[in-house]
Structure formats: C-alpha cells, structure tokens
C-alpha cells in the first residue's frame, strides 16, 4: 500500500480510561450558562410553526397528481423556541469575535460589522442577478471598482470574479492555463507542485487530467530554481506555487522560477492563500506569475461563517487574460453590462467557459470592497506589515521553548514549528492543541504542511493587540514547559473544560450517522 498521507499516527479515539473531572452532576445536565440543547427533531413538531404568512390568493391549485401528499418529517418551532435553540447552539462555538485564532494559512482577521451593514443595503442585497442591467448599474460599478483594486494590488491585467471559493479559483486558473495550451495547439500533461503544497493544488491538477510531478524543497523549505529547471520539460503545462509558501517563507527565487517556467513554454499558477503577508508591499504580477486566486475570506476579511461562503476571484497576466471565464463586466458609452455569451465577445476573448450560475459572490464583493475602502492603500500596507511583525514577534518569544524546522530565520505572516520540542514527553502535536482549548485558545493549524513532522503553523494576523499576543505567547510557553516537565495528563486528557471532550472520530467514520433517526447511537453502533 502507499505510505499514508499522514503517518504520524494521530490518535482518533479518546483514551479508554479518560474519566471526567469531579464536577457536580445536575438534574438537567446543564452547567449554569452551558446548556445541553437537543436536536430540532427532538423538540419540534411537524404541526408547529414560527412564521405568520399572508393570506392565500383566491385561486385553485393546478398540481393534481403531482402534489406532495406524504409526510416529509420537518419539525417546526415557534419563534421564541427557535431563537433559544440557535442562541444556545451558538454559545458552543469559538469565534474570532471572542478569541484569537492562530490558524496558519487561514488569516483569521477581524470581520468588521460595517461590511455586514453595507452588504445588507437593499441596493446590494435585494437585487436579482438577471434583472435588466439598466436597473443594477451601481452593482456592476461596484464589481468594476473591486476589480480595479484587485488589479492594482496584484499588478495583473484581468480579473475573473466568478469563482465561489479558493479551490474554485484554483480550478479557474488551471482551466485558463489549459485553454491557453489548447489554443496554441500544445498538448502538455504534467503540472509541477511542491511537496509542501496544500492538497487542493494536486487535486485540482488531477481533476483537470494532469499528472502531478512533485518538487522537493530545500533544507529551508523553499523551492530552488534548479529543482524547477530539472523538472521542467516539453510535457509541463504549469507550475503551481504558493508564495509566501506554506512554511511561511517568501520564495526568494520566485522570479527566476517564473522565467524558467515561461522559457519552457509553461505557465505559473500562484496559490494566493498567503497574500496577507504582502498586500501593498509586493505585487505578485511583478514576480512573473500568470494566475493567482485571492481568498476574499482570508486576505479581505469576509467572514468565515463556520465554513463558508467564501469567494476566490482570480487575477490573470496578459498571457492568460483572453481565456478568463464568462461572465464578466464590460463598459461602454451606454454604461456597464455583462458579457455572458460567446456571441457578445470582442475578437481577442476566448473564455474557457462558465464556472457558476450567475456571476459570483456579490455579497462578498461588497464586504471586501468596504474593507479596502476603509483601510485604504496606507492601511492595507500597514496591515501586511503588522501581520508579518506579529508572526515574527511570536517566533522571537517562542523560539527558545519550541523548535523551528528550518532554523531561526525571519518568517512572513506565519511561523512554523515542529514537534521536536515535545519528543520524549509522550505529548503529541494533537495533544498540545487540545490543551490550548482548555486555556481558551483555538488551536493553531496542525500537521500542515505535511513536509514537517507534527507541524504547528501559527498566523496571528494584524488584528491582535500586543496584550493579546503576549497572553497567547505566555500560554504557549507555559504549555511547552509543562509538557517537558512531564505533566502529560494535562495534554492527553484535554480538552477537559470544553462543551465536549475528545470525540470518537473512528466511530463516526466506521458507522456513519449523517441524519437523525429515532434509534440511539449506542444501539446503532452494536
């Protein structure tokens, strides 16, 4: 069998003898403000409702035998019960608004409420994508303004706004590259990807029918132009590189790599996940890239929402501009319009197709533009500097108690540690992360990038005050020292104070229960 992607044997089941702390048992199972909330299927009823609808018009149904007569099984709750149910659920969630997220590669910065207010203006939130364009000129103007900002910040020539997430943006960039090769009649089947890349990169390449050739990193985690040159050939369609890379370092030979890639007739796709390190300081276009997706939910603060929605617009160089997908916004004497069909194109345009219905995540465009207008050019540059400063401050104050895989060198907006400082303690990266939860912190990114053992990737962002950073650092120092002092139970039993203790992921995968049913989990598992 292949070597497992992650062979660091992370425990997925809680230890058998892990007993709970001797907290007093209550009748309800609640613990003061910490409430045990059942599922809607356990408290609601199909005959109950929390909405008051208008009266039905005087008309008769025409559905006949197509009408849905069988019970569906959807519980309803009154409005007060609904409010309580979801407020109680919300209290079991960690969030940026309540604490720091040191999550490397995620850029968990402050989500401003101004952005929410702007997105909810009726002129943005209550307009339909297929209204006549004469009735939505302000919306198209906003999309053009956002495009202008993204192009100025990246130094690129065209932007596709339609991708709905970062991975979707990667697909967009790679589809454009493939279209460019097809248009030139060149049939190349290989994409170069560093071992340290995020899994979406090789997945996207494979999805497109490419085979992936892996690039090794140097001792310090970066990719050398020699390695790239050796891997290049007439069969290589593109390289996919993250810059700054997944180890938090700027690729120093990125420009030489771009030249080598272009000389070999290939394209340079840049994963823009770490753009927050360089906004206003470096323009990726100057480095020679051909396509880069931008995560509006990372760099431009649109909220993570518990897992989405995101937005992943893609900027293109002149070489790829012609292949950008439909639809896009155009402007002429009559105002703004959408170019939505092949018949509306100007001569040079050769879009590879359409990625989604309608034209993109307008709600996220409004939020991102509000962010950009608020920060301004000076504020965005300052934000990148503060992000890099904060990560290096964390590095400087933890490097004597935690271990860095590539020696002590400045990082960009995120700092990478490995688990060598835990060797011999019986505490793994996972255990360490769970102990952070008890201390009131969301864990850092763990076990990524895969090229480092027990990786811990920390990205504080520019949104943290110095006292918040200090508190985080002191906590990490305490935990590192506690692990080395042999206080193992603090880690292996953790978390002990969260709404739930460690959950049995093995059981969840062996006996998947993905919808509610009347039988108890214990019965089903037998």
């Amino acid at each position, binding site marked *: 069998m292949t070597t497992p992607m992650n062979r660091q044997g992370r425990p997925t089941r809680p230890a058998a003898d892990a007993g709970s702390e001797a907290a007093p048992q209550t009748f309800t199972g609640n613990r003061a403000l910490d409430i045990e909330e059942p599922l809607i299927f356990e408290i609601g009823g199909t005959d109950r409702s929390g909405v008051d609808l208008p009266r039905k018009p005087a008309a008769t149904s025409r559905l006949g035998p197509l009408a849905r007569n069988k019970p569906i099984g959807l519980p309803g709750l009154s409005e007060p019960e609904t409010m309580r149910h979801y407020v109680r659920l919300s209290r079991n969630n*960690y969030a940026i608004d309540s604490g720091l997220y040191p999550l490397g590669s995620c850029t968990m910065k402050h989500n401003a409420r101004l952005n929410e207010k702007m997105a909810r203006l009726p002129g943005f939130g209550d*307009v339909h994508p297929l209204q006549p364009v004469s009735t939505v000129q302000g919306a198209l103007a906003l999309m053009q303004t956002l495009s202008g900002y993204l192009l100025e910040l990246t130094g690129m020539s065209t932007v596709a706004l339609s991708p709905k997430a970062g991975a979707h943006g990667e697909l967009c960039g790679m589809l454009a590259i493939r279209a460019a090769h097809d248009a030139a009649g060149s049939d190349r089947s290989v994409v170069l990807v560093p071992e340290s890349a995020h*899994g979406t990169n090789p997945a996207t390449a494979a999805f497109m029918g490419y085979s992936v050739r892996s690039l090794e990193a140097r001792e310090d985690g970066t990719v050398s132009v020699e390695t790239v040159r050796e891997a290049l050939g007439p069969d290589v369609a593109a390289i996919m590189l993250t810059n700054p890379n997944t180890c938090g370092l700027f690729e120093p030979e990125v420009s030489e790599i771009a030249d080598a890639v272009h000389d070999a007739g290939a394209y340079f796709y840049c994963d823009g996940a770490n753009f927050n390190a360089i906004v206003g300081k470096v323009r990726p276009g100057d480095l020679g890239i051909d396509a880069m997706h931008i995560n509006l939910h990372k760099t431009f603060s649109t909220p993570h929402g518990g897992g989405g929605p995101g937005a992943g617009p893609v900027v293109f160089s002149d070489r790829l501009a012609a292949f950008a997908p439909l639809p896009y916004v155009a402007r002429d004497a009559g105002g703004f319009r959408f170019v939505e069909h092949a018949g509306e194109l100007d001569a040079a345009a050769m879009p590879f197709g359409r990625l989604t219905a309608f034209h993109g995540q307008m709600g996220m465009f409004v939020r991102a533009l509000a962010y950009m207008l608020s920060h301004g050019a000076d504020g965005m540059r300052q934000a990148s500097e503060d992000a890099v400063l904060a990560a290096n401050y964390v590095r400087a104050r933890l490097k004597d108690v935690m271990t860095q895989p590539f020696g002590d060198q400045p990082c960009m907006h995120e700092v990478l540690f490995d688990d060598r400082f835990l060797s011999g303690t019986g505490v793994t990266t996972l255990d360490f992360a769970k102990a952070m939860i008890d201390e009131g912190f969301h864990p850092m990114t763990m076990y990524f990038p895969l090229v480092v053992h027990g990786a811990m990737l920390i990205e504080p962002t520019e949104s943290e005050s110095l006292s918040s950073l200090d508190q985080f650092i002191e906590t990490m120092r305490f935990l590192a020292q506690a692990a080395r002092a042999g206080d193992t139970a603090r880690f292996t039993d953790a978390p002990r104070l969260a709404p739930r203790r460690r959950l049995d992921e093995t059981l969840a995968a062996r006996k998947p229960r993905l919808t509610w049913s009347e039988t108890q989990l214990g019965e089903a598992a037998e």
Partner: protein
Amino acid sequence: MRYLPLTPADRSRMLAEIGAADIDDLFAAVPSEFLLDGPPDLPNARSELEVERELASLAARNTAAGAVPFFVGCGAYRHHVPATVDHLIQRSEFLTSYTPYQPEVTQGTLQYLFEFQTQVARLTGMEVANASMYDGSTATAEAVLMAERITRRRKAVLAGGLHPHYRDVIETLSKYNKTAVTALEPRTNAIDDLIAAIDDETGCIVVQNPDVFGAVRDLTRVAETAHARGALLIVAVTEVVSLGAIRSPGEMGADIVTAEGQSIGNGLNFGGPYVGLFAARQKYLRQMPGRLCGETVDADGRRGFVLTLSTREQHIRREKATSNICTNSGLCALAFTIHLTLLGEKGLRDLADLNHLAAVALAERLEAVPGVEILGDGVFFNEFTVRLAKPAAPVVEALAAKGILAGVPVSRLLPAEPRFANDLIIAATEINTDADRHALADALAEELAKKEPA
C-alpha cells in the same frame, strides 16, 4: 486605522524583541527590486462615514426587488425572510467562526449542520445529504462527476429544460474530464423525449424539475428507464420551496438530487452567496462530494458531532480526491436551516401553496391580456413562460423603466435561439400582491398595444 490595534510604541517594542531595526528587515527575503517603496496607487484610508456614503451611493443606483412589483426568477427567487433568521446568522459565534475542524469547541456549527443534512434529506426524499456546496449549479456538475464514478460511464445527458447556466457549468467542467455531455435542445423536455435519450452507454440523465421554463413533471418513468439501462437519474431543483408542494425527486426515483437552496433563508444578493443542496441514496455515500457531518460520542459518552469521511476530500486524497471542493456554504446553510425550522412542515406547505396560488392567480390575469400566450401544458409551480406578440427583452426594458421588473426574457439565457425571442419567464411568490399582479398585467397590455415605430 481602527482595525489595527498595534500602536507605534507597540511596534517598536516588538521590533526590539525580534532584534530587527526596521519592519523591512523582516521583508529581507523579498528581492529588493520587488519590494514596493510606498503604498499602492489607491486612495488612503477613509472614515467609516465616508465609506458608508460611497457604498450607499452605489447601492442607490440599483432597483431593489422589494421596492417594485417583482416577477424575476430563473434560478433565484424573492421570498420573505423572517427577521429572526438574519439576526441569528449575525451572531458572532456563527458569523465569525471557522470551519469546525476542532469539534470540541464548534458543536454549535456541527449540530446545525447535522440538523441541516437531515432536513435536506427529508425535503428531497433521499437518504443522505451533505453539509452544502457553493450553489445549485456547481452541485449539479459535481453530481454528474459522481454518477461517472459510480457507473464508470462517461456519457451524461442533460434535459432540455435544465437552466442554461447549469448546462454551461457542466460542459465547462467536463471538457477535460472526458465526460461526453449530450445537451438536449432547450424545448426537448417531454418525458418521452427524455426516455428516448437514454441508452446503454448513458451514465446519468440530469433533469430539472420544475424546469427552467417552469414546467413540473412526474419523472418516475425516466427513473425506471434510466435504472433499466444502468444509468442514474439526477434531479436538479432550482426553486426549493417547490418541494413543499410537489412530489419529491426521491419519491420519483432519483438517485442524486441537487438544488439551489437560496429560496429558503437567503436573499437575492445579486447572484451570491447561495447554497447548494446535495442528497443521494445511502449506498452512494462514499462517492459523495463535499463536507459531511456525522454523529458520535465523546470521552464521557455524550452525543456530539464531527466532520467525517474526510478521506474523500482533496486535502487528504490530493490527486485521488472525489472533488475539488474544499468548503461548504456554512452561513447560508445556517440561514436555510433556521428558516426551515421556523416554517416547519406545516409552514413550508402553506408557503408553497401560497407561491403556487400566486402564480395561478397571475396566470389567470395574464391569460386575459391580448398578445400574451401562456406556454406549456399548464402544470407549473410558481413560474411559467409566456409568449408575447413582440420580442420580450425590449418589453422587459420598457416595463423596468416604469418601475416593474417583469421576469427574465428567454433571450437573456439563450440569445442564439431566435425562436425564443418573444418568450418571457415569469415567477410569482408570496411577496406579490393583487396590486402587483394588476400592475404587471396592465403594463404588459399597454406595452403590447403599442405600434412599432415606423
């Protein structure tokens, strides 16, 4: 700058701790020719008040659906979202929370995802559903890929009534995947036509119900034929409120159901963010794309929820992932589940009835307008197509200038088909009043009565 807490004194202290003289020392890895000397060529920071003014002035140039008689559908629908929904999704712990990879401190998110998955499975009449996808169109494209993995056949047939955007997305994603997509003509929608299009090489047939022209059909015979030939039936639903009134795709024999969930809980938002629903038969679980939330227990034996079966996803499988998708549409799924909980089954049925009857009332009024012919066999949910006596796009433009948003001219979606130039797709929902219906009918009558300029 109010979002940046560090003060100049803080920065100096931090630099000293690091041992760097200047912030640019920390950018030393960037070759100096690429490090910008100063900020980009964009305006500097502005006050909150100024930003509000600028964006409000852009918003004011758009006609909001709530301000006018509104009949635009075709894949996104204007419904009333209760105030409770928008309030709850703005709670910090929902809005600003990360993906629930640390389940011990994200049971809020995980529990609502579990409830959402159950609601979606029941609504669609299927056995299992995922935690949502970007939108209906990408969910449908992923369903085609999933059918390919299951049947090991590369031929996908798309019914003529599939939303043209959905068709385009499937064709774009299939280009390099070696999927052979056969898209039937836009009006090729009759059950017999669909059955005739399925052969022994077909991996799946994708049928939208109600279709883009608004027509509702019983797809049972299509499912039977597909299964007899070894193919899967994928049903796409762009108006999810219809599932409160029409027999579910699961009942009709669908193998995979995809839907656009925007109609419940989510506003129009000019096209996004929306929420894709994805449901399938239990036996196909391991071929499903997207995130899945599952039930389990913790170390104390208490019930809890976790993301599960992650080995299908790309960050683990890398080259062998079942899809390129990394994320779901979390907050939009939350809005959907809250609204559906508020509605409950009775409320959803009432809402669906309201929508259907609003469309019936509108159709009755429009039937009486000279120059308006309602197309199709008469069974629609809340949307139908009319043929006007003159090209539809200019009529819609004229009505927009009078403050009525009359619907989507088919030419907006299918410009290369001149035979549809006079066709207009009109949606009706619970937001329409008698006065709105009156206004539309009168305005159409007036517009159609005009003689063309010489």
